[in-house]
């Protein structure tokens, strides 16, 4: 080996070392910067399609809370990245990776659609990314697929059903028929109702299903009329909710067999349902007429900021912000202290516009459920159906 070649080799080695050192320096600088710089929040929400309005309400609610805190949580400024998930499950894995890999977000807030949510939950588990779920109720997210870094501030699909089952049992109904779409959200809601109703002494005599998302109910309404149960429990949302409520009334069943539903039956659909919805009872974690100082202040602030009325989705977005604030405040904005941050979030007591909320061991929200009656086109709370109702979180090994 000639000296020349040795020299060349040494030079190459030095160059390589230098390059590595430079990279290390950059990396170190970037890390140091990350802890004093901004916290990056990634919204993965539907901004187009049927759920577009929900996505915007969630983002507005979140940003309203951050704005109220002076734009900082835990001493650090917040910046945002957004991805439109279009409520399209096939695109969900790619979309969530854009936030995690491309935008390098510190926390994901999303989403509305349960199918898309499953992909986000999986990505959050694989990459250990902090995730706050602002709507989707799919039971698995805080059940078999729960994880320390996954939190939900909205509801689980079973929760409204669990609350309504208690109400139906208290009303001394003996028999019930359930009807819903044959898909996860519907079946989980029915499962909740069945659990508490049967525990309270009632009996679900028949579970009826229609294929999702068809809206031909006539045959099953006739079936209900022939079974003559004491009450009917149902989960439908959107267009299906409108048609079901109208068909139920048109079939003359409304005055003979009380119709009970998860709150989504009459949320955002009352205008289209008209008189057919009058007097219907539903359970949800929010109502239009909660007159607490906390809710009044929230609704006023929201109306001022966005020139539109706040709804349950705005509340859920707002509380996603509150939960993140609890975590960041506990560690003074130092995201490296992940275990302390998660511990603080899991123990959070949040003063939500809907009332006080906490989290269950599986990181699903524990909250009051309101019994609401449709009056003059509004969902008015007439009682608390269930105090501090927790989802059982079956299959979750946390806590």
């Amino acid at each position, binding site marked *: 080996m000639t000296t020349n070649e040795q020299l060349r080799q040494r030079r190459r080695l030095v160059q390589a070392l230098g390059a590595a050192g430079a990279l290390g320096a950059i990396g170190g600088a970037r890390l140091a910067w990350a802890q004093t710089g901004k916290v990056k929040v990634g919204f993965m929400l539907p901004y187009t399609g049927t759920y577009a309005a929900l996505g915007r309400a969630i983002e507005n609610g979140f940003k309203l809370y951050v704005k109220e805190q002076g734009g900082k949580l835990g001493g650090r400024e917040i910046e945002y990245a957004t991805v439109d998930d279009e409520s399209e499950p096939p695109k969900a894995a790619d979309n969530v990776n854009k936030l995690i890999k491309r935008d390098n977000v510190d926390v994901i807030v999303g989403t509305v659609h349960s199918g898309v949510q499953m992909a986000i939950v999986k990505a959050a588990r694989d990459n250990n990314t902090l995730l706050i779920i602002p709507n989707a109720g799919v039971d698995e997210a805080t059940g078999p697929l729960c994880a320390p870094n996954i939190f939900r501030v909205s509801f689980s699909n079973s929760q409204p059903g669990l609350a309504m089952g208690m109400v139906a049992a208290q009303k001394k109904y003996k028999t019930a028929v359930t009807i819903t779409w*044959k898909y996860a959200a519907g079946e989980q809601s029915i499962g909740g109702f069945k659990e508490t109703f049967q525990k309270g002494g009632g009996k679900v005599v028949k579970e009826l*299903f229609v294929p999702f998302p068809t809206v031909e109910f006539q*045959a099953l309404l006739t079936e209900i009329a022939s079974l003559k149960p004491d009450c009917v429990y149902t989960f439908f949302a959107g267009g299906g909710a409108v048609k079901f409520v109208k068909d139920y009334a048109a079939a*003359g069943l409304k005055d003979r067999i009380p119709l009970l539903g998860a709150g989504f039956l009459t949320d955002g659909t009352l205008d289209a349902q008209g008189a057919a919805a009058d007097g219907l009872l539903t359970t949800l974690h929010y109502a239009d007429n909660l007159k607490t100082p906390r809710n009044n202040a929230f609704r006023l602030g929201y109306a001022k900021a966005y020139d539109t009325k706040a709804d349950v989705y705005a509340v859920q977005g707002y509380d996603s912000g509150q939960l993140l604030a609890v975590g960041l405040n506990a560690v003074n904005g130092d995201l490296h202290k992940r275990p302390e941050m998660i511990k603080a979030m899991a123990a959070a007591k949040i003063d939500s516009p809907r009332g006080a909320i906490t989290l269950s061991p599986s990181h699903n929200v524990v909250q009051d459920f309101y019994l609401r009656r449709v009056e003059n086109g509004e969902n008015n709370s007439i009682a608390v159906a269930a105090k501090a109702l927790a989802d059982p979180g079956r299959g979750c090994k946390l806590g």
Partner: protein
Amino acid sequence: MDVSILLIQILNSVQYGLLLFLVASGLTLIFGIMGVINLAHGSFYMLGAYAAFTLSALTGNLFIAIALGVVLAVAFGYLLEWVFFSFLYRRDHLQQVLLTYGLILIFEELRSIVVGDDVHGVAAPAALAGSIPLGTTMTYPVYNLLISAACLVVAALLFGLLRYTRLGMMIRAGASNREMVRSLGIDIEFLFRVVFALGVALAAFAGMISAPASSVYPGMGNQVLIICFVVVVIGGIGSVPGALVAALLIGFVDTFGKVFLADYAGILIYLLMAVILVWRPEGLFRESAV
């Protein structure tokens, strides 16, 4: 299940079947006579329902809205054939599928921009808003009976038009031999334009008349489109009586399937289609063009 409930379920089946026929008849005409696979047919149903919603709000009367809507639908169909579909007859099916699928996206987006993504209800006229008692616990809305009656009238008119009028004769002739009809001096382009406008008007009419009984929501057209293709395939492509029989058949299978075989209700009609295609690959009524 006692007899009165059984009778009510039969009524439900007929009602659903007739409504399906109304949408599918236009599809089978366009498909059978012009040879175009029109995926946008469900969109015409959706546009009809939204037209009923906006026009009845404007005019304050559902029947005026429907009359106006039918006229608009005919004009719209005529224009659409002229601008887009007339270029499709000599192309293969893939290009037809591409164009008509594109139209679905455009119509849905236009609907979203103009009316929004909310769910809407349309009020039935006050005179027909009542219900008649059926059995001990149920009532049946008068308006639903009107829908069935309207479907029967339209079916009769359509049958009469195709079987006994000069225009119907030309349409049937055009379906079986396009070149011969043209060489006899009949303006086949105009004829097809009329058929297409008729098909669009039928779908839009179905959407408008069923709007009060169902409701008006995004994506409603695509749902009905798939079932209508099943109707057309079972009935035999291009056959209007076939569509009627197939629609009623599906009405019965769907209704009673939901009651007796709830777990399989979603696949029953497709199973029915498979069985019929094995038995008669051309559909029930292939031979007669009408």
